[in-house]
């Protein structure tokens, strides 16, 4: 499964829930496949998608918050797992699309195949799902509505050459329409 297919499968399930998506190709894939005003596209500040998602989750406890993260992104802010696992937001679903590379910068390796990100998350109080196939991903998405967060869905994806188009909404506009949409 390549990232685009994984993003597509997750988005089919999500409908109008809030998504905070990490900078780089993840936001571009989301924008190309599933553009909506309840998406907060990051175009900078790598590593912080899960922190932003946590802030929203704490303040909007009745809404489900999905974080679309990458392996390079979460490895840059691993302490975020500790904070999320300590505060235990029930409404936070953290999805890591793990292709073991920094794809947006040219495919340089990360360490995500040397260690197990899921195990780290498990140690920090997440309920974890490790996924390799479309079918497993679909089955997991069916299950999660009955489980309290924080939930981590760790999806191993293949390196892909396809990428979505650049997010061409201004950052100010991404913010203002997002804030209006989640009120």
């Amino acid at each position: 499964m390549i990232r685009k297919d994984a993003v597509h499968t997750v988005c089919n399930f999500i409908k109008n829930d809030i998504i905070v998506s990490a900078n780089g190709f993840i936001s571009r894939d989301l924008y190309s496949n599933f553009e909506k005003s309840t998406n907060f596209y990051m175009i900078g500040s790598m590593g912080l998608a899960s922190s932003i998602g946590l802030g929203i989750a704490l303040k909007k406890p009745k809404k489900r918050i999905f974080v679309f993260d990458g392996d390079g992104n979460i490895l840059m802010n691993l302490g975020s797992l500790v904070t999320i696992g300590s505060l235990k937001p029930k409404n936070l679903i953290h999805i890591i699309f793990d292709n073991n590379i920094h794809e947006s910068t040219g495919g340089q390796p990360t360490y995500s195949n040397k260690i197990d990100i899921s195990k780290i998350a498990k140690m920090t109080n997440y309920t974890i799902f490790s996924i390799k196939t479309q079918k497993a991903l679909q089955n997991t998405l069916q299950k999660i509505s009955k489980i309290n967060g924080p939930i981590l869905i760790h999806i191993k994806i293949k390196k892909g050459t396809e990428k979505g188009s650049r997010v061409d909404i201004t950052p100010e506009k991404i913010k203002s329409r997002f804030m209006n949409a989640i009120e």
Partner: protein
Amino acid sequence: MNEITQRKIFNYLLKNKIENFVGVPDSTLKHFIHEGLKQKKILIANREEEAIGIGTGMVLADSPTLIFMQNAGFANSISTITSLVQLYNIPMIFLIGWRGFLKNDAPEHTTIGRIQPKLLKNLELENKILDEKTWKKDCDWALSKIKNKTHVALVIRREFLD
């Protein structure tokens, strides 16, 4: 800044609808932070960038937020300020402890203390230095700035050695 004023500043900002105080501790700000901990209003992050990320999420959920940090953490935060807070124009107040304000402060405080005013200026981050006499006026200034949807910094000097 003395303990009583720091506690007053916390309570004044809380009364004026700052709902979240997120950050990384600083001895310069310890009475402010302690007052917040006593009232269960403080969220401690592991790093300052993380604190700004969490605070940004809270602001996106329409909940006014202050981020507190040492100036070492302010230096850590520069990229997050430019590529998140300024890029999206996220209204929030930064409260920064000015370690290295005294010339004979600890060695790890001196360089950052010397360049802090220049860093704030180069970042184009509007800021005021709080003191015992004028803090209320400067807090009002910061509160009005975030109401008008922009971000500012308030600075508290480290006026002691330990």
